[in-house]
């Protein structure tokens, strides 16, 4: 059921994205807003950097004891009257969830925003089983109407403008008056609120993701701003949590540490509006809340990452700061990445989960500028992990032959100083002479990737080392 990827066509996807004027305008919002908001939230909390270190330490501790915490977490969920289902693959996870829905005779399922549900292709599975799946996060709802995937892990519809949303609402909400005003974000939101309120109240099953699974209490924690995750889980009879294994934290105190860096890194809020701790089904005497509580724990390739050079990626808390600060994401947006997770975290995670043969473009499409790592709340060395993927590709001869031979030729020259000296002593003066008039080249053989877009500066003439030797090692 796992989502089909267009990752191998990354370059084509990027080309289309770069020529999509509307998308380019929308991406300007990411470039400016998210960056400024995070910076001011971080500046307002003197302990921010210490909390990042703390969050990293908690995640590392969990990964080193993951089997034990999973067992404790499971035992606590059961003790509180819930059930835990482990799923090795996307297919298994979907099967488990569909089976729970069917067992409760469900017709309608509401969903809070969950990236892992995108990863396993859950909506398609629920619909294939004859049930309705309704995304309730405003952004997710909009892209569901459009048949799209999220273009950002925390702002799924960031690639759209309000005119596009209006068009979709008019296309789908045909029972509403044609002459209604949908020109403003306020009126669009109001319409979605009305439509989705009815869905919340009529749902049989509510599915949410989890930002944290707490071993101490067997709780799941979600953070949302809209409140849709709450309406999803407190109104239907059944609450299903779908979460990946690495969401475990030992205690509520540990969750608090990470919550303090999560919202600040994501949206620049000190705290997300609704942080909700859910533990088991409703208790005797409760007048609301779900009667049944299930957790589906998804592996889907993550257990294999433990102990590998990509283990650090499992610290990721899905805040989106890396893509908010990424010049490549700013240029091409999220859909170009071709699978579920875009930006730097996606460039590392995608090959881990769908294979480097399929996802290998992504770790290459980075300038290694390091801005992602510098803002990562859990200090994931994203450029280093992308480089590891390039190493795996190089070892397995997966990168293009021309690039490979070019690199090896340069390395050969560089390893033989005399060859380097001889070749460059001939080549550079010739190039300098050819470019003497304008000081640059507008075309150069074998450098089309460069000169198609910008000029190549001409060299000055003799190499530095040649001149240095000629001057007897002195500086003029």
């Amino acid at each position: 059921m796992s989502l089909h990827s267009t990752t191998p066509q990354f370059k084509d996807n990027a080309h289309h994205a770069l020529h999509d004027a509307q998308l380019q305008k929308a991406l300007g919002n990411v470039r400016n807003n998210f960056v400024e908001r995070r910076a001011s939230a971080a500046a307002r909390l003197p302990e921010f950097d210490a909390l990042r270190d703390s969050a990293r330490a908690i995640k590392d501790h969990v990964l080193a004891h993951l089997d034990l915490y999973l067992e404790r977490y499971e035992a606590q969920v059961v003790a509180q009257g819930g059930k835990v289902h482990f799923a090795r693959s996307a297919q298994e996870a979907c099967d488990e969830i569909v089976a729970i829905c069917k067992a409760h005779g469900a017709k309608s399922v509401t969903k809070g925003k969950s990236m892992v549900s995108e990863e396993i292709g859950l909506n398609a599975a629920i619909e294939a089983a004859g049930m309705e799946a309704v995304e309730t996060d405003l952004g997710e709802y909009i892209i569901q109407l459009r048949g799209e995937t999220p273009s950002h892990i925390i702002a799924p519809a960031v690639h759209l403008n309000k005119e596009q949303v209006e068009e979709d609402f008019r296309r789908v909400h045909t029972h509403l008056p044609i002459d209604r005003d949908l020109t403003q974000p306020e009126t669009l939101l109001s319409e979605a609120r009305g439509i989705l309120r009815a869905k919340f109240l009529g749902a049989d099953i509510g599915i949410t993701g989890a930002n944290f699974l707490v071993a101490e209490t067997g709780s799941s924690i979600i953070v949302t701003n809209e409140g849709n995750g709450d309406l999803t889980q407190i109104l239907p009879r059944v609450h299903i949590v779908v979460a990946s294994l690495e969401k475990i934290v030992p205690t509520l105190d540990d969750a608090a540490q990470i919550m303090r860096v999560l919202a600040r890194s994501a949206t620049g809020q000190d705290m997300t509006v609704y942080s909700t701790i859910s533990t088991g089904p409703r208790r005797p005497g409760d007048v609301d809340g779900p009667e049944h509580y299930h957790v589906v724990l998804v592996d889907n390739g993550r257990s294999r990452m433990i102990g590998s050079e990509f283990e650090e990626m499992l610290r990721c808390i899905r805040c989106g700061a890396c893509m908010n600060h990424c010049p490549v994401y700013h240029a091409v947006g999220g859909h170009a990445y071709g699978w579920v997770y875009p930006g730097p975290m996606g460039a590392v995670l995608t090959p881990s989960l769908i294979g480097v043969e399929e996802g290998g473009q992504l770790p290459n499409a980075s300038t290694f500028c390091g801005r992602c790592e510098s803002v990562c709340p859990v200090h994931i060395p994203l450029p280093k992990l992308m480089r590891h993927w390039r190493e795996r590709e190089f070892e397995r001869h997966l990168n293009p032959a021309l690039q490979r031979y070019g690199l090896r030729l340069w390395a050969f020259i560089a390893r033989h100083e005399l060859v380097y000296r001889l070749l460059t002593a001939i080549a550079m003066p010739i190039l300098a002479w050819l470019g003497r008039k304008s000081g640059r080249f507008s075309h150069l053989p074998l450098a089309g990737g460069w000169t198609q877009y910008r000029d190549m500066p001409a060299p000055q003439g003799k190499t530095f080392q040649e001149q240095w030797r000629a001057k007897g090692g002195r500086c003029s």
Partner: protein
Amino acid sequence: MSARDEILATIRQALHQGDDATRRAAVEARLRNTPRGIVPARGQGDRGQQVATFVDEAQRVQASVTQVATAQDIPAEIARYLRSQNLPLTARMGSDPRLSALDWSAAQLEITQGRSNGDDLNGISHAFAGIAETGTVCLLSGAANPTTLNFLPDNHIVVLNQSDLVGDLESAWSRLRQLYGKGQLPRTVNLISGPSRSADIEQQLLLGAHGPRRLHIVLVTD
């Protein structure tokens, strides 16, 4: 092998720890001792400072806050608030004795009790705690304060006793552990910081996405 056992076995093999006893001890110790991490200084200080921080932070996230001297003043304050927002003097609340004990009719408020089914304009809840650090109110599920009241009404009014105000999340956890016992929690713990919002359309921040459009906090000096 079941999915569960296979996943756990894969992880164990990857961690290839010969010394499982040490790892088990580390896990047990952490769950038993629940060590506190870094707690921001912002929420600390004496009661007066914490109140000031709480009010500032709550207002920063678009909640409104008023302070009243005693619990008896709550109905009049809520009536004043509803009038100021041009809202009818009706509200729904749970069975919390701290709220039931008050004389609502004196303030001309028409109160109904029970969970919300989506047709209430105003909901009133009593908070379990307030968290100064982020201007957050903490509410617990149960018949006293049904969770549906936190999300379905358009306007959510939360009563918070000043004596329930703590500096930080960790202090709220401590109070929860005291009340429910270690490892135990009510079905739902809601930490609410301001009214519902969304910025999903063109990054423009709008209040009242799916939950309440307004959050009004009545802080009781008690």
